[in-house]
C-alpha cells in the first residue's frame, strides 16, 4: 500500500501554495507550481522547482480548470497533486480526475469527499452516527424553504451546500429577505465553487464555532488533533482562530472530539479534514466537514509541534498515522486580509510598497507577500497569517499584539490595525467568544484619533520627501503626451519646508 511519491503539483496559489511547497520539499518531493496569468510574478511560482502556466486570470479558466491542471501534472510527470484550500480542494470530480490519471490526490477519496464535503450529505451521515445537527433544509424549492422557516423561525442562515469559508453565506432576519438572499448566495456559490446549491439553517443566538482537526490514514486509523475556536468572524469568515478553545470544559471537548471521530469513522475518512461544530451553552451541533486542509491549520501545528502538510503527504503515500504528540501551550492566528475594516471590509487591491514582518520567539508568518507583490481583484484577499505561540493563552495573545504592532504593510489597505485592536481588547482577553463577537464589540471600528494625527504628520514628512522610496507605480509611469510631470503635492507649500531642509 506504500507508494513513494516523487513530484508534487500544487494546485493553488498565494500563501497556501508557498506553505505546501515548503513542506513538500521537507518531505523530499520535487515541487511544481501552477499559475494564472495574473500570478506569473507571484512568490509560489519562484519557490517551486518547476512552474507551469495554466490559463488567464479568471479562476474558472485557471485554478478551477480541472482539465488544465491535470494536463499540467501529466506534462511535468507529477505523481501527486495537493489542492490546498478553496478552488478545487473539495471537488470530488477533481480528485476523481487525478485518480483517473494515476495521480495521487492529497486528500480524501472522491466518494468520501462527495459524501462529507457536501453539507447536505454530511448532515445525513452525522444524524445516522448520532451526532446532533442544527435544524436545516436544502433550499431546492422556495416553498419548502418557506415552510421550514415558518417552522423553526427567523433568523435563518443561508449557505452554499458545496462551500466553505463563509462564501455565499447570508443571515436572513425576516421572511421578506429570504428570496433575494437565496439568489445572491446561489450566484456567489456558483461562482466560487461551481455549484449553486443552497442550504438553509436555523441561526443560533450566541454560538461559538469549535472545530476538530482530523487525520485518517489508508489503514483505518483516525486521530483528532485537538480543537480550534474560530468564533471571531466578520462577514461569516473567520479572522481569528485559536487552540485550545478557551474555557471549554474537558467534558465538552471530549464529547465534541468523540463526535468528530465517530463521523470520520462512519465516513471512512482519510487524509486531513476538519469537523466543524457550533457550541451554545451545554449543546453542540455538527455543522459541516471541510474535507481538506484548513486555512487555520497552523494553530494546531504550533500546539502539537507537527506539520500537517507533511502528515498529509505521509498519508497520501500510504504511510501510517503516527500517534500525535501531546499538545503544549496555546496558539492564536489572525488573518491579514486585503480589506478595509473602516468601510464594511470592502476588498482592496494594490502593490506592496513596504512590508515589515515581525519576528522573534513564538512568531510565525505564512505569506506570499514581499515588497513589489501585487494584490489583484481576481482572488481572495488573504495576504498572510500571523500566528503566535505561548506557554498559555495570555502569552500567545501578548505575542500576537506585539507582532501586529511590528507589522506594517503599505500599498494595500488591510485589516492589521483592526486585528491588533481586537486581540488587544478586554473582550478578547476575557474570551467572550461567539460568532457575534465582531457585531457585539467591534462594529463601527475606526483607526484611533492619535494614530490619525500621527498619520497626518507622517504624510507631511512623506510629501516633503524626507521619508519613503519613490514607488515604481508613480515614478515609472509614462506621462500622456503634453502632460507636465507635476506632482499634486507641489502645491502643498507648507510641506516643502521639510523638503527644502534636506
Amino acid at each position, binding site marked *: 500500500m506504500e507508494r513513494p511519491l516523487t513530484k508534487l503539483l500544487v494546485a493553488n496559489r498565494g500563501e497556501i501554495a508557498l506553505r505546501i511547497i515548503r513542506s513538500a520539499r521537507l518531505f523530499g518531493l520535487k515541487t511544481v507550481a501552477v499559475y494564472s496569468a495574473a500570478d506569473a510574478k507571484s512568490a509560489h511560482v519562484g519557490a517551486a522547482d518547476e512552474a507551469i502556466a495554466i490559463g488567464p486570470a479568471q479562476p474558472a479558466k485557471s485554478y478551477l480548470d480541472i482539465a488544465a491542471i491535470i494536463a499540467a501534472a501529466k506534462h511535468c510527470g507529477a505523481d501527486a497533486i495537493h489542492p490546498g484550500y478553496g478552488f478545487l480542494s473539495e471537488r470530488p470530480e477533481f480528485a476523481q480526475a487525478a485518480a483517473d490519471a494515476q495521480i495521487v490526490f492529497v486528500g480524501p477519496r472522491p466518494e468520501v469527499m462527495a459524501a462529507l464535503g457536501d453539507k447536505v450529505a454530511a448532515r445525513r451521515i452525522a444524524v445516522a452516527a448520532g451526532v446532533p445537527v442544527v435544524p436545516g433544509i436544502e433550499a431546492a424549492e422556495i416553498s419548502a424553504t418557506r415552510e421550514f422557516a415558518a417552522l423553526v423561525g427567523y433568523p435563518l442562515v443561508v449557505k452554499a451546500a458545496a462551500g466553505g469559508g463563509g462564501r455565499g453565506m447570508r443571515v436572513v432576519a425576516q421572511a421578506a429577505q429570504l428570496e433575494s438572499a437565496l439568489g445572491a448566495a446561489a450566484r456567489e456559490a456558483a461562482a466560487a465553487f461551481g455549484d449553486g446549491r443552497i442550504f438553509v439553517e436555523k441561526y443560533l443566538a450566541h454560538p461559538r464555532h469549535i472545530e476538530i482537526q482530523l487525520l485518517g490514514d489508508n489503514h483505518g486509523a483516525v486521530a483528532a488533533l485537538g480543537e480550534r475556536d474560530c468564533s471571531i468572524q466578520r462577514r461569516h469568515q473567520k479572522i481569528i482562530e485559536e487552540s485550545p478553545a478557551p474555557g471549554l470544559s474537558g467534558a465538552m471537548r471530549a464529547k465534541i472530539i468523540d463526535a468528530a471521530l465517530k463521523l470520520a469513522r462512519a465516513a471512512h475518512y482519510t487524509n486531513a479534514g476538519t469537523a466543524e461544530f457550533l457550541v451554545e451553552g451545554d449543546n453542540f451541533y455538527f455543522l459541516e466537514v471541510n474535507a481538506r486542509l484548513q486555512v487555520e491549520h497552523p494553530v494546531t501545528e504550533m500546539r502539537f509541534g507537527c506539520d500537517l502538510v507533511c502528515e498529509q503527504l505521509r498519508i497520501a503515500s500510504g504511510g501510517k498515522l503516527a500517534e500525535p504528540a501531546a499538545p503544549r501551550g496555546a496558539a492564536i492566528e489572525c488573518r491579514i486580509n486585503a480589506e478595509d475594516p473602516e468601510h464594511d471590509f470592502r476588498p482592496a487591491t494594490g502593490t506592496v510598497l513596504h512590508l515589515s514582518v515581525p519576528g522573534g520567539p513564538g512568531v510565525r508568518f505564512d505569506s506570499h507577500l514581499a515588497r513589489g507583490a501585487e494584490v489583484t481583484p481576481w482572488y481572495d484577499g488573504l495576504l498572510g497569517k500571523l500566528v503566535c505561540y505561548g506557554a498559555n493563552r495570555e502569552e500567545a495573545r501578548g505575542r500576537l499584539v506585539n507582532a501586529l504592532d511590528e507589522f506594517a504593510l503599505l500599498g494595500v489597505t488591510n485589516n492589521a490595525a483592526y486585528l*491588533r485592536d481586537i486581540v488587544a481588547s478586554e473582550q478578547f482577553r476575557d474570551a467572550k467568544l461567539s460568532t457575534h463577537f465582531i457585531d457585539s464589540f467591534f462594529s463601527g471600528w475606526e483607526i484611533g484619533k492619535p494614530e490619525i494625527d500621527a*498619520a497626518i504628520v507622517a504624510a507631511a514628512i512623506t510629501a516633503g520627501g524626507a521619508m519613503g522610496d519613490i514607488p515604481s507605480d508613480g515614478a515609472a509611469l509614462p506621462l500622456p503626451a503634453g502632460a507636465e510631470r507635476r506632482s499634486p503635492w507641489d502645491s502643498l507649500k507648507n510641506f516643502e519646508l521639510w523638503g527644502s531642509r534636506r
Partner: protein
Amino acid sequence: MKLTRAGDLREIDAEVISRDGGTMRVRIGDRQLTAEFTPNADGGGVLAIDGRRYRVFGARRKDSILVSVGPASLEFKPAEAASRRRAHGLAAPEVIAPMPGKVLMVMVRDGDLVEAGQPLVVIEAMKMETTLAAESAAMVKHVRVEEGQMVDHGAVLIELSPSPASSVRESAPRVE
C-alpha cells in the same frame, strides 16, 4: 495643506508651522501638536507625539500619499481631488469603483431619483460582492457601465446630479 483620507469626504486642514531638526510644530484643524521625527534605516521612522512613539512609513503615489502608523495604513489625497468630486453640490457627483472587478448588477437607470443609502451597483471582486450605494439623495445623470463589464479601480460607474428634492450640503464637515 488640505487633504482627505481616501474613502472619507471630511477635509483635513493641516500645516507645518515650524521645524527645527526633527522636531516640528503642526496644526491640524484648530489644534496644534509637537512631533519629533527620527528616521530609521529602513526608510521609515519613529514619530514621538505626546510622549508616545509611533513607527511610521510613507510612500508617495501619483495621486495620493500612503502612510502607515504601527499596523494601521492610511491613504491621503489632496483635497483638490475631493473638491472636484463635490463640485456639483453633492456628497459625491460620481459613483466610482473602489477596486477593480466585475459589475454584477446595476440597480438604476438614467433619470432615476435615488435616496441616500440606496443601492446603485453591485461589484464582484475577490470573490465578494460589494454594493455601492448613493452617498446622498441625487438624480442618476448617466449610467456608464453595464452588467458583466470588467471595470478598473477608480472607474466612474454612474454620474449623479443634484436631486431636486434634496438639501445640498454646502461644504464637507471638517475633522476638528
